[in-house]
């Protein structure tokens, strides 16, 4: 699932500074699940924005809507009365924000969240990055633990010298991905695979302007 974190109110307020009627649109899928872009977030953010502007002595009208997904035109059809607003703030992930930008080409669109990563929902309110979308999955080589996403340096051949009691050198609150991999492979009895040198990744698959065509 895509994880996004809320933008600060200051940032949102500054973005819509020139507008008096904005529509805030939430997304009922990933960002709702990670508690940042669903109907509740829309309501809280819209209220906060309204109050902040009131404090400045300038009222703002903030419409609130939430659709099932902003990454599909069909669901974006559910957005009503967009023409009554001067701008749209989207609380969807970057994909949805661009979706709504394409849907309403003449309306300025502002992001209300920072899209951060593809994550696992560990528990209430806690998400961890699990995949970088590298385009060349090697989980079968690494005991089902992704070294690209879960090693801070995306190393492919074992822990760096900074590994520290199972934690990563960038912070003792983060697990060292390579210790996880090693332990998992040990558990699976596949350590002989660990010995093999993994070739550099083909980063051509991770970058560029990617698309996928299954139509043929």
């Amino acid at each position, binding site marked *: 699932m895509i994880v996004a974190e809320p933008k*600060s*109110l*200051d940032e949102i307020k500054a973005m819509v500074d020139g507008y008096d009627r904005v529509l805030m649109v939430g997304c*009922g*899928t990933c960002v*709702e*699940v990670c*508690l940042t872009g*669903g*109907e*509740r*977030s829309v*309501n*809280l953010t819209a*209220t*906060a924005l*309204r*109050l*902040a502007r*009131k*404090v*400045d*002595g300038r009222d703002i009208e903030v419409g609130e809507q*939430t659709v099932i997904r902003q990454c599909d035109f069909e669901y974006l059809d559910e957005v009503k009365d967009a023409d009554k607003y001067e701008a749209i703030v989207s609380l969807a992930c970057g994909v949805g924000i661009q979706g709504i930008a394409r849907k309403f080409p003449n309306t300025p669109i502002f992001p209300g969240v920072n899209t951060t990563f593809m994550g696992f*929902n560990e*528990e*209430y309110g806690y998400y961890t990055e699990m995949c970088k979308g590298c385009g060349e999955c090697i989980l079968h080589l690494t005991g089902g633990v992704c070294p690209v996403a879960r090693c801070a340096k995306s190393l492919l051949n074992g822990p760096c010298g900074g590994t520290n009691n199972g934690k990563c050198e960038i912070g003792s609150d983060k697990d060292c991905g390579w210790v996880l991999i090693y332990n998992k492979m040990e558990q699976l009895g596949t350590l002989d695979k660990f010995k093999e040198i993994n070739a550099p990744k083909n980063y051509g698959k991770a970058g560029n302007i990617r698309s996928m065509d299954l139509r043929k």
Partner: protein
Amino acid sequence: MASEATNVNSQSEAFETWIKDQPLKPPCAGACPVNADIQSFVSLVAQGRFKESLEAVRERCTLPGSLGRICHHPCEGECRRNDVEGAVNIRAIKRFASDVCADEPVSDAVPKTRGKKVAIIGGGVAGLTAAYDLAKDGFDVTIYEQNDACGGAIYTGVPKYRLPKDVVAQDVAAIESLGVTIKTNTAIGRDVAFDDLAKDYDAVLIAIGLTVSRGIPIPGHDADGVLLALPVLKEANFNDNAAIGKRVVVIGGGNVAFDVARSAKRMGAEEVSLCCLECEDEIPAFSWELVEAREEGIIINPSWGPREIRVEDGKVSAISFKRCSRVFDEKGMFNPAYDENEILGIEADNVVFAIGQGADMNGFTGTSLEVDERGRIKWDALTLKTNLPNVFASGEVVTGPGSAVAAMRNAHHAATAIERFLTTGTAGAVVVPEPLAIGRLPRHTIDAIVRKEKNHVPMVDPAERVKSFMEAEGGFDIDMAIYEAGRCMNCGRGAEIIAEKCAACLTCVRVCPFGAPYISESRVADFNWDSCQSCGICAAECPGMAIHVGFNDDTLINERIDAATSGITAFGCQLGKPEIYNPLSKATSTPPGLNFVKLMCASRLDMRHILRAIENGVDGVAVMACPDDKCRYRKDVNWAEVRANRVKRLLDEIGIGGERVEFMGSFATPEEAQQAIGAFKAKLAELGPNPLNKVMVK
């Protein structure tokens, strides 16, 4: 209760709507013969809204003060809290609501909008209940009561030490105040002819109860000193100098027999024994009657059948019993068998028969009312009708002996029958929907529920209480009542899913301390009401705002928030204490300038609620949450604090300032709470008014 709904106009429709709107009721309401909305009135007491609570009781339990004392409370037997540590003391809460409002002015009369008149014969439990319903429905109701006051068996029969007569009078006065005409000292048959009544009124209800005690024609039964239960009880109730012999033997094992035995003790008898056919386990009286009677020194002799009363100088001197080997035969029919070889003799100055009551039909002989071969009114249990088109009957006269609340239930049905008859012109079967009770608490939920020991009502010491007819059982004081009411878990009024909004995100599943939410086969959240405790934690976290909590409805909360546009709005647990009881309003109230929004649990507090209060213009918001060990809900997180902190940060960003929200703990006394509020007020005064207001002024 749904009676506030606008499309509802009769008592019975209101009741049916209440059931249909939410057919799954807590088991207490299901077990209650009148299906009282127990959790509502209990919750109102918990919130300090006593007068409202009393009104909620009265809707179905028309004699709250009386039933708060004598009801055998089957509700408590089914209370789900039994599986935790003990039932909620529902009866005592009801009594409290009535007692605390004892000096309340009675209600305003209901306008008689129906243009039809109903006569009720007999102002007992059934008659009064039907009068309540029909008066509320807008009929012109007159009760004809042969005694000097209404109440029936609970007035004349139930002894004062269980039910003081002024309590009955208080209950009756409330019904009278609805505009019911009560003609006391007016016996039908003696003072007014039944047939005239049937002609003069659009409908008549016969609710004359069972007012004649029966005896057994054993040898010596007509001797001086042989008495009947009801006259003895009447004497005890109304003659301050009532006396009885030194040695009294009561025959019978029902509640009436125990009332007689315990009254005899209070009338001065030194040796009271009670003999009944049934063996100890079969004794029909309530178990607590046996306990209390024994505490008072009454000797209980089970499995004895009366054989002969010995008479000396025309006066009772002793009575002998034969061993009763069984009461009911194989078919379960009353058919006692005796062993004549085993005899028990007891010396006695008085023998009292307390073996049952019959109806006094004298006032109806020779009228158009038909009776069967045994002299009982010909009556249809479904339509509650007699042979006459506009005459109905209800209560024990037709149902036979039972409990007061059962008579009430039957009377509600009778009122429904009459209302429909007078509305439509035809009488039909009264089919009343039965609520479905939610299930028992699952084990994992029981484990997660915080234990809160049951509050018992105080009882006067046995040695003391037998000295007079003073009331034996005490009531709750305000603190006890609020505590006890706070034990109610509001079963079955919890989280409901708004399916189209649910993203199946699992947040509710993860935050619920009781394991109630789950993702159903249709891939949306659903809630197991057997487990849900209505705390509302989930609803305040659900990112899709897809959860509605019955008992903690957002609309209701918002209404309360909107009550203040200045000063401080405080949120907190309904059991929190920023308030002081106000004897005038019969409710607790907050100091001026404080709008206290009560939530089932402070965990129900939504960030949106705080923002709404701020947007309304209040200068500050106080969040009061109990410390975790005081909270009635077990939770790992102090949600109220978490949410208050989140809003503080947001308010900082908004430019209003997070210091306008203050998280406080809970308080042991209202004074402590007021002190904290005072300090907060001072802080707010320094901060100046809510910046939103300043802007508005400009």
